[in-house]
């Protein structure tokens, strides 16, 4: 009984710390409609700042706390709102997720850059004092946490219910534009919300750090606990968030306390850290159907789809290029090329899901891991074995998507984040998968009796798979399915009133995207023949999304380039360990800048030939009058390129921007090739 009480008390104190972190998340989300995935990462960062002040520089704890919570954190919050997240609330959910994921990665990058990995600890407050209440040990840290959480609750209540600015905050939830018309300064309100939210993230991190440890990634994952707690109040109700946080704190505490009492517990050593995730899925399943969003998202200009002929020419060209590239290449470089191709296929899975469908997945690497695990279980893998891996991963994807079937895209993305963490901690560490980072072994693939024994032939085979997947995706984009996907991205309300059951459609698209990721994972393991769970860390999925955001989510070119740079990032970090963190920051800043245009850098690449024509040709034509004629002869400078088959039979160029002319994927190079 005493034991039970002890765990209950610990649970309440943990819950109190979760409540502080979660209320910050609710405050920023409900005021600005931006779900801050970086909430935990921000808390992590300021926990390290606090450590720096109180431990490294030796300031008193109270002063460090005041400096962090009173000055550094709120100031950062205001700057973030001003320069990073402003206006994201009305943007498509995919855009706001890319930007906040970028913020998360940037925070980790900055933190690892400043504080090199080493053993650190934040001691509890007054570590020497212990109180004994009816045989239960209570520490000052517990009491301080509980008192602070009550103060936060009271403070937020007074702020929201009793002050003018609080009323404005609640009003800006409903209609920020209208608030402005009535003289409320919506920007000030948002800035305040981010200032307070950032401080609360910092406080949550600092209070939990003695328990969780000074770990960049574990502290970042506090966002999952905060999110799980906040879900009970549908991300908007503070009292329900506190209830959720307490329930979660208790659940975590009981799992830690009683897990070893159950038979078979030795297989579930990864369970305690994923309690928030399981809690989260349980709540997601119970939530009611979300209403369809009315209010149009403006149509997006996306990279036009190349014609079948052109796709074919390019596909064969790419395979030819890889064949030339890999001949006589050293094995270590070959492995990098193969990895880039596998990552390129992973990127293609995001093109389908995010680029066309507008949904975000933060677990593509976890799906790749599932594909790899399934593939490794197949004896003498052939195409059939590969198909098993693909379909199996698709089924797992469907299982992730079904609980959030009735909810909006934001919840789908957050469910994938939770899923990625679940796979990391629970499944990939279990005996039948990787077992604590033991390498997982698999054989090379054999296709129709031919076994790809050599690394070179395997890499070429992977390039063929990349091209095949790209063909499938372009075919989808050009057909009915692609049109429906884009229609769904543009207006869910209209799709619903036209009779589309978006719930199952979304599950199908998500499962399809997961299958592609599964294929990438299976190919990766078939190439390396041995792989560890570290290759599929959830954090990689976040990097993948950012890479895709930078290079472009709407084109095959963007996916290919993204794959190459995704492979190159850890290589570059390995070669330059001094700036490893800065490279994360660079990627994140790129994604923040480019993330608002899902076409990414690839789009500017497509525009380049047109820009060159526009600015260079007239000058040259002036100098060499013959040039102008030649240019016309070869189709340059014409708005309608005959070679360019614009999408389906009679309708125009799907998704193209008529105003900008045919920004055809590789249109210029194609014109050259046609000669």
């Amino acid at each position, binding site marked *: 009984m005493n034991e039970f009480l002890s765990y209950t008390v610990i649970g309440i104190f943990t819950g109190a710390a979760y409540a502080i972190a979660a209320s910050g998340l609710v405050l920023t989300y409900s005021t600005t409609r931006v779900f801050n995935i970086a909430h935990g990462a921000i808390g992590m960062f300021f926990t390290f700042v606090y450590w720096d002040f109180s431990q490294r520089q030796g300031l008193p704890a109270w002063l460090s706390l005041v400096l962090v919570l009173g000055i550094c954190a709120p100031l950062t919050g205001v700057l973030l709102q001003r320069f990073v997240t402003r206006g994201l609330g009305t943007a498509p959910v995919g855009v706001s997720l890319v930007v906040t994921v970028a913020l998360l990665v940037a925070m980790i990058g900055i933190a690892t850059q400043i504080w090199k990995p080493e053993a650190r600890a934040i001691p509890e407050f007054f570590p020497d004092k212990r109180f004994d209440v009816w045989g239960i040990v209570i520490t000052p840290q517990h009491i301080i946490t509980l008192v602070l959480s009550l103060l936060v609750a009271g403070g937020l209540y007074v702020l929201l219910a009793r002050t003018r600015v609080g009323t404005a905050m609640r009003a800006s939830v409903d209609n920020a534009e209208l608030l402005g018309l009535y003289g409320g300064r919506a920007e000030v309100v948002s800035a305040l919300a981010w200032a307070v939210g950032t401080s609360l993230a910092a406080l949550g991190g600092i209070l939990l750090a003695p328990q969780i440890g000074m770990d960049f990634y574990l502290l970042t994952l506090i966002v999952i606990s905060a999110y799980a707690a906040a879900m009970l109040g549908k991300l908007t109700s503070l009292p329900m968030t506190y209830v959720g946080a307490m329930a979660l704190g208790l659940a975590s505490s009981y799992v830690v306390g009683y897990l070893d009492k159950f038979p078979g517990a030795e297989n579930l050593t990864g369970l305690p850290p994923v309690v928030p995730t399981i809690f989260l899925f349980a709540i997601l399943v119970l939530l009611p159907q979300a209403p369809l969003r009315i209010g*149009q998202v403006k149509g997006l200009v996306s990279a036009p789809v190349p014609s079948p002929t052109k796709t074919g020419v390019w596909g064969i060209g790419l395979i030819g290029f890889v064949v030339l590239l890999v001949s006589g290449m050293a094995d270590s470089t070959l492995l990098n090329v193969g990895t880039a191709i596998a990552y390129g296929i992973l990127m293609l899975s995001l093109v389908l899901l995010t680029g066309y469908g507008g949904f975000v997945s933060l677990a593509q690497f976890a799906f790749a891991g599932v594909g790899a695990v399934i593939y490794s279980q197949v004896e003498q893998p052939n195409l059939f074995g590969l198909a098993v891996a693909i379909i199996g991963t698709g089924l797992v994807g469907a299982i992730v998507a079904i609980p959030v079937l009735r909810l909006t895209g934001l919840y789908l993305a957050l469910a994938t984040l939770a899923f990625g963490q679940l796979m990391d901690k629970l499944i990939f560490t279990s005996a039948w998968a990787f077992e604590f980072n033991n390498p997982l072994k698999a054989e090379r693939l054999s296709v129709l009796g031919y076994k790809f024994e050599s690394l070179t032939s395997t890499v070429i085979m992977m390039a063929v798979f990349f091209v095949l997947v790209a063909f499938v995706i372009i075919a989808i984009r050009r057909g009915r399915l692609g049109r429906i996907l884009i229609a769904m991205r*543009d207006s869910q309300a209209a799709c*619903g*009133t*036209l009779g589309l*059951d978006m719930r199952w459609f979304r599950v199908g698209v998500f499962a399809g995207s997961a299958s592609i990721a599964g294929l990438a994972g299976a190919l990766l393991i078939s190439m390396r023949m041995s792989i560890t769970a570290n290759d599929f860390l959830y954090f990689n999925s976040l990097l993948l999304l950012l890479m895709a955001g930078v290079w472009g989510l709407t084109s095959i070119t963007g996916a290919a380039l993204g794959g190459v740079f995704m492979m190159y990032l850890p290589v570059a970090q390995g070669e330059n360990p001094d700036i490893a963190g800065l490279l994360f920051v660079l990627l994140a800043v790129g994604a923040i800048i480019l993330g608002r245009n899902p076409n990414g850098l690839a789009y500017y690449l497509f525009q380049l030939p047109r820009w060159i024509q526009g600015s260079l040709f007239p000058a040259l034509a002036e100098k060499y009058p013959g040039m102008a004629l030649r240019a016309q002869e070869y189709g340059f400078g014409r708005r309608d390129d005959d070679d360019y088959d614009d999408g389906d039979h009679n*309708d125009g160029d799907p998704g*193209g921007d008529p105003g900008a002319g045919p920004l055809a994927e590789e249109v210029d190079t194609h014109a050259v090739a046609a000669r």
Partner: protein
Amino acid sequence: MPLLHVDDVVVQFGGVTAVNHANFEVEQGSITGLIGPNGAGKTTTFNVVTGLQTPTSGRVVFDDKDITRMPVHRRSRRGIGRTFQRLEAFGSLTVAENVRTAFDIHDGFAGLFRSVQNDVDDLLDLVGIANHADDRADSIPTGTARLLELARALACDPKLLLLDEPSSGLDESETEAFGELLQQLANEGRTILMVEHDMDLVMNVCDTIHVLDFGSVIADGTPAQVRANPVVQKAYLGYSDDGPAGDDTAVLPLVNEEVVL
């Protein structure tokens, strides 16, 4: 026989009652107008009928079936189509593709085996926007986009068509043509319920009119009856002393600042 029956529907947003015990019926094959000042709850009523808004209480009966709890897409399958006041065209697609997508969705797997190109062209001709077929839907004028939404809704072959301010953005001659189109659709057996602020159009084409104010139906009847109804005049104009209002104005003033009800 009524095709649609809105039965004592209440919709509350927090403390605001947008629809307050609304009751009305729409007869099979009729053109029915739903009019009222801004903020009277017309669009919310449409959202309740199409399933985009769950009512706080009350029932919606369509074609003798209670559809109050039915999801949006299943109502569409049963024959309810609509257009939106705030446009919901698929902006990234062309006008023709918008309509084609509607066929894609409506036909499901069966659509794999038939070409809809002619049907798309016919619908665009019918509503008179064939010249915009290859324009992106987010680049066309508002009036054209409303006609596009009508064409898109027609692709699903609805029994009941809900039109939310379909003529706003159309000029006078276009509105006239639009009125003829509505009558043609009604003659083909479709039932039309429309929210409309152009009183000439409403008075000319509607068989029945329901007047909403503050979320409740305050009057029903033929155009002539509604026009003569003092309660309606009060709701619209804030006075009720002299004769039929709005005879010489194409559009009644619709700002409800003077509403006394």
